[in-house]
């Protein structure tokens, strides 16, 4: 059966619970407004089981009731990411088993960009959105070069540290600086390495979209809201699972 309804205590009862705050003082009119909102959301009848003032200008509600919507599970579209999302433990295990050494990530903010917010959110142990950064992963060796790193310096450090992956972040977008800097970076790596020995190149920043990878000459682009776990999972997929590009054993 692909047509379903929420379940409270009887099949087909459609019961849901809902809580929200309205920016109005707590009175009868506020309760009526809460019922009206719940009705518009498809809850009918809507039962306001709790309402409480928050200060003088707000009211909090808890509402129960059946919704008249049906959902068709056969019509649910799932957008699959092309790599599996792994927990830090799974990332570490995959690297230990698949690579038998630590995976080296060199990160930097290149060009004149001094905004390390992005790269730090991904690399620093402090992390982002409740996830620890890549430094937290035992099997990842993280070299964070920080801000305003020149491309030749980045290439030199990548070679010195035998980098498996390069992460660059770009926040400043004046005069397309983020695009130009990233292109310069990818060109430099392609020149300095044979294609099958080149580290995986990853660019990130709020103004990038995932579709820009080819234009930028990198292997992967991460946009706004990317979490460290996503980056780590991608690196495992690219460098351990798929082994693309093929790496010399180090």
């Amino acid at each position, binding site marked *: 059966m692909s047509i379903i309804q929420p379940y409270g205590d009887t099949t087909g009862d459609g019961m849901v619970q809902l809580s929200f*705050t309205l920016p109005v003082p707590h009175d009868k009119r506020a309760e009526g407004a809460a019922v009206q909102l719940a009705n518009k959301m498809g809850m009918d009848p809507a039962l306001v089981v709790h309402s409480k003032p928050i200060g003088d200008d707000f009211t909090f509600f808890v509402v129960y009731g059946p919704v008249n919507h049906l959902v068709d599970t056969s019509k649910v579209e799932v957008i699959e990411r092309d790599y599996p999302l792994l927990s830090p433990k799974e990332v570490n295990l995959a690297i230990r088993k698949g690579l038998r050494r630590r995976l080296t990530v060199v990160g930097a903010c290149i060009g004149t960009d001094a905004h*390390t917010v992005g790269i*730090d959110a991904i690399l620093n*142990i402090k992390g982002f959105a*409740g996830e620890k950064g890549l430094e937290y992963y035992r099997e990842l060796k993280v070299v964070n070069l920080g801000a305003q790193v020149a491309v030749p310096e980045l290439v030199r450090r990548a070679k010195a540290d035998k980098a498996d992956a390069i992460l660059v972040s770009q926040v400043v977008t004046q005069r397309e600086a983020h695009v130009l800097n990233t292109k310069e970076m990818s060109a430099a790596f392609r020149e300095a390495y044979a294609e099958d020995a080149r580290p995986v190149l990853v660019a990130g920043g709020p103004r990038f979209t995932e579709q820009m990878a080819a234009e930028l000459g990198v292997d992967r682009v991460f946009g706004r809201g990317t979490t460290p776990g996503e980056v780590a999972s991608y690196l495992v997929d690219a460098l351990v699972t798929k082994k693309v590009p093929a790496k010399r054993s180090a």
Partner: protein
Amino acid sequence: MKKLDLDPVTVRKARSLARKAGKPIVNLAQQHTTVSVERAVLRLAGLTGADTEGIPWVNRLADTVRADVGLEHGLALPVWDALIRGEAEDLTVLAQKAASGSVTFRMPEGRDAVRARTAARKMAAAGMKRIDGRRRERDRLIKRHGDPKQRPWIYLIVATGDIYEDIPQAQAAAREGADIIAVIRSTGQSLLDYVPEGATREGFAGTYATQENFRLMRAALDETSKELGRYVRLTNYASGLCMPEIATLAGLERLDMMLNDSMYGILFRDINPIRTFVDQRFSRQIHARAGIIINTGEDNYLTTADAVEAAHTVTVSQLLNEYFAKEAGLEDWQLGLGHAFEINPDLPDSFRMELAHAMLARQLFPNAPLKWMPPTRHMTGDVFRGYLLDGFFNLVGAMTGQGILLVGMMTEAVVTPWISDRDLALQNVRYVLGAAGNLHEDFRPEPNGFIAQRARQVLGESVELLEEIVDDGLLNAIGDGTFGLMKRPQDAGRGLDGVARKSPEYYNPAIELLEEGTR
């Protein structure tokens, strides 16, 4: 309050080991200076403002002086020598001239050096007097409006990125019951080697710490304190590369509490260990003088390491933080030593272990207003379960007499708190404090029961770890990944290029005044 039968000899041993581990670090800190310590002197002397690119004048001036004569002598002598030589009428003009390259600095000698020293000391003393005045003002306002009626004090966070949004939110939070308002900083500020200038409206997941933002928020909370008849405290962060300057600004603008951990920047921000310890000592001396309560960051260890296995690293860090704090002149009432409720709730007896750890901290530091931090790591997005967990967190806080309670949000890891989240969280706190706030009067753990044994075990492990640290040296221990699993060698990390070993000619009037310590 002595509920755990801890062996006083072991406790004394733990403290003396912490002193042994910390002493070499203090020596190291005394032998070095940093760009931010030196810039703090300029801020104390009243240099404010920034150039058109937003780079503060203190940075422009410090960079030029450093390029001309180096950092190792301190900035005071070359700067005030230039003023005495008539290069500029005041510090701002001197900084502008320095930035444009129209003044050259030198190290004064003989009588010139004496004159520069006297002038520098006079200006720094004027700044110190302002900080002292701010402290007296706080004492006066607390007397007038009163302290919170209950312990723990209730600590709430605002973080919109825009100081003009933060202000009404902070005032609303205080009206709802917050005793302490913390303004979270923008992500990445800790790694800026300058303090941004002016009122700011754009930040990433937080609001920049600037002198003007401090002033605006303190003024707003002064209004609210008056309205509520209770002094509402303001908290910010003295951490990262500009810790000494931010501490100074906090003193000048009467902030009441500052997050200020001895090792956080090293471990979690990869800031060079020597840079951190030098900056730390100066900032704590300022906090001591300004009557600011520090909050240390032990809770962070438990977000990366396991809260049961790493329980003793929290105790060790608290002991080290206590040593460094007292060495810098802070008193017990100023030590908001941190710890957190982060044990996996699926573990059997997790609550009893939390209770044991919290009681251990309470008994080891009986006169410190411990800062008790809510669960974050095991908040899953299931807000109902999270609400229960926060209730148990509050219960431990009530049962163990914590000084500062950071209110846990059931929507931790989901959204930045909504108005209703905050209201529900405060109801949770009020219910627990009202229902069980005096439970500590009745509660005595069995002398040889689970809780007492667990506390003794953690203390024992702490002593063992401290012994290792003393043998190995604290800097090496940090390099080996003893805390929070992070390995931070002393010759690496951010900000190392801003450290210099003091020369025999070194002079810093702020440090001189702080160490004389007379107010």
